[in-house]
């Protein structure tokens, strides 16, 4: 029984971490129609930047916010200066994001070196707590809570604000959105900044669990892809459900069938895409 409680908590915590990673990816993919392959690198860069910020600001949450802002600026620059020049050329844009991810990986190696760097867990959260008779790392539950709060905030942003309505309009029908006077171009930049900020902050918040190390980008990118493909491109609900679904499938899958770790991760995505190409919650874009 205890075992199942721990594994359930594990799957929820992993789902929360995945949501922080995948939400921004889904937004960018949905609006701009490009798979932003720098997303894993933004996550890794966020973690490294957070580590440097932590040297001056010894508070993880503050570092996450500062890191998020820095990554937003970085993302905005990438969008304005590089992707903008390739507007309309989706394949070119995807390839450029891939190229940028290699550049970021090497820059991180130059600046922060090749050794794994830990992100310290906030002292108050270092001790495991007892949940239903099992010991579980407190910090992971906090990550879960942060993910839920972030999801709520994004939901309110997307569903209750004018800018959210504009983004949804852009996702659903870009040309019509332009025709009715929505500044799609500025929206692109805003969404890219938001996506980058989420990825960067996610990297720092995930830091105490994952650490920062070369290759973190390549470890995280496929997970973001799986979650978004499964949940549906451009759908916040899809990213949310997809994250927890993948968290659960991964956790219970590797617990029950340890030899099939990779199969378990990718098989559900393939099945869903085969029968529902838009993903669980994605809508056919016009």
């Amino acid at each position: 029984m205890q075992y199942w409680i721990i594994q359930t908590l594990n799957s929820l915590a992993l789902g929360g971490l995945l949501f922080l990673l995948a939400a921004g990816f889904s937004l960018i993919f949905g609006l701009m129609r490009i798979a932003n392959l720098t997303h894993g690198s933004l996550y890794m860069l966020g973690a490294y930047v957070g580590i440097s910020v932590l040297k001056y600001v010894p508070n993880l949450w503050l570092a996450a916010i500062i890191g998020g802002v820095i990554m937003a600026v970085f993302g905005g620059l990438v969008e304005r200066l590089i992707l903008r020049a390739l507007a309309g050329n989706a394949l070119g844009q995807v390839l450029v994001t891939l190229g940028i991810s290699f550049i970021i990986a090497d820059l991180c190696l130059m600046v922060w070196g090749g050794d794994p760097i830990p992100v310290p867990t906030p002292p108050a959260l270092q001790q495991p707590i007892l949940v239903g008779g099992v010991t579980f790392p407190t910090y992971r539950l906090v990550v879960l809570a942060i993910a839920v709060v972030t999801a709520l905030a994004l939901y309110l942003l997307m569903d209750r604000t004018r800018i959210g309505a504009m983004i949804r309009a852009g996702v659903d029908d870009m040309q019509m959105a332009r025709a009715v006077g929505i500044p799609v171009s500025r929206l692109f930049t805003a969404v890219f900044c938001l996506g980058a900020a989420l990825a960067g902050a996610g990297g720092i918040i995930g830091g105490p669990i994952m650490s920062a190390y070369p290759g973190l980008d390549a470890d995280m990118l496929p997970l973001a892809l799986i979650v978004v493909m499964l949940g549906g491109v451009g759908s916040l609900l899809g990213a949310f459900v997809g994250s927890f679904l993948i968290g659960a499938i991964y956790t219970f899958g590797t617990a029950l069938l340890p030899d099939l770790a990779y199969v378990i991760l990718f098989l559900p995505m393939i099945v869903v895409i085969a029968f529902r190409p838009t993903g669980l919650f994605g809508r056919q874009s016009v």
Partner: protein
Amino acid sequence: MTFNRRRFIQATGAGAAALVMPTIAQSQTGPIRVGLMTVKTGPLASGGIDMERALVQYLKERNTTLAGRKVDLFVGDSGGVPAQARTKIQELVERDKIQVMIGPLATAEALAADDYIRQAQLLTLSVAAAEDMTQRKPNPWFTRGTSTSSQCSMPLADYSHKTLKMRRMAVIADDIAYGHEMCAGFMRVFEENGGKVVQRMFPPLTVPDYGTYLAQLKTDIDGIFLGFAGSNGFRYLRQFNEYGLRGKVTPIGGMTALDEAVLRNMGDEALGIVTSCWYSAEIENAINKKFAANFRVDWSYDPGFYAAATYVEAAVLEATLNALKGNIEDKPSFMKTVRNIKVDTARGPVSFDRYGNVVGNIYIRKVERKDGRLVNRVIHTYPDVSQFWTYKPEEFLKNPVYSRDWPPAKNLES
């Protein structure tokens, strides 16, 4: 000028002679062209960069001269990708004309380059641990001064049973050949001593999170063997503490689980953990003391596995060249000499078996704090360990190579 047949023959003959001449003239006098096949980008870069730093230090300490000949060093970077490693090695051989290669770093890279090394008859002093390249499919041009995957885990199994008195253990390692080979060697020796491996886990190399594996870990065991490489051991151990497992299960580690490169970013969670390796920056011999001290001065951290690997291979190279009076051009006699050489290195005395693999000390180390930093203090030495441990080579080689499936795990409990 008309170009008749005679003139053509003269010209090409002269050309051919010109092609041959320099190598003749070069032998004994020209510089020795040494290639370092390493990894300077990607996830394995940390170790790869250390390989270059230590080799450069070795050459600098000798005024870039080995056995009276200058050394030209060429460095290749594979990014840790096996196919890339093969291409880069080819480039080092065919463009840079290297005469001897130190490297590559990773097991998969060595396996990918195996054919080419044979074909090019490239003198290779390997850092990679691929077992069968010095066992059932020995490559005649391949010599390894570090260790095979299981060469350090077999003595550790002996130590954990006899000295640490462990009886029931779990093993966990990356799901790659290196991890399988290490665990298999550990399990075989541990169970033949009378212990039982009751749980075995192979998480994927790029697993995002060890939470599920930690939740599965049995707590009615004496210890767990960590067969991780790179940053994985470091992440596993941090999460191990997060889940409150410290004090319930004792972790012990293979040769790359708590390397010096990882230790410098760790904290108290690493204290007291026992690992085994063919090296430690703390080994008390004159060569190592000088090496570690100089390395620390230049880079302000302790040399680890990878730094020591090239430093040791360079010492093997120098001793061989000294024995041959610098004549590296005679490849067969180089290979014959290197495999019969005995040399004192930073890791202690080194010699080779007839399959080209090192016979040398294996150290049992324990993480301690010294001068404010974490170090692997040597607590026990297994002298002159071969890749066959205490088994007879012929009998050892009759078994299949160590893997996920061999030896069979008989005592796993579900």
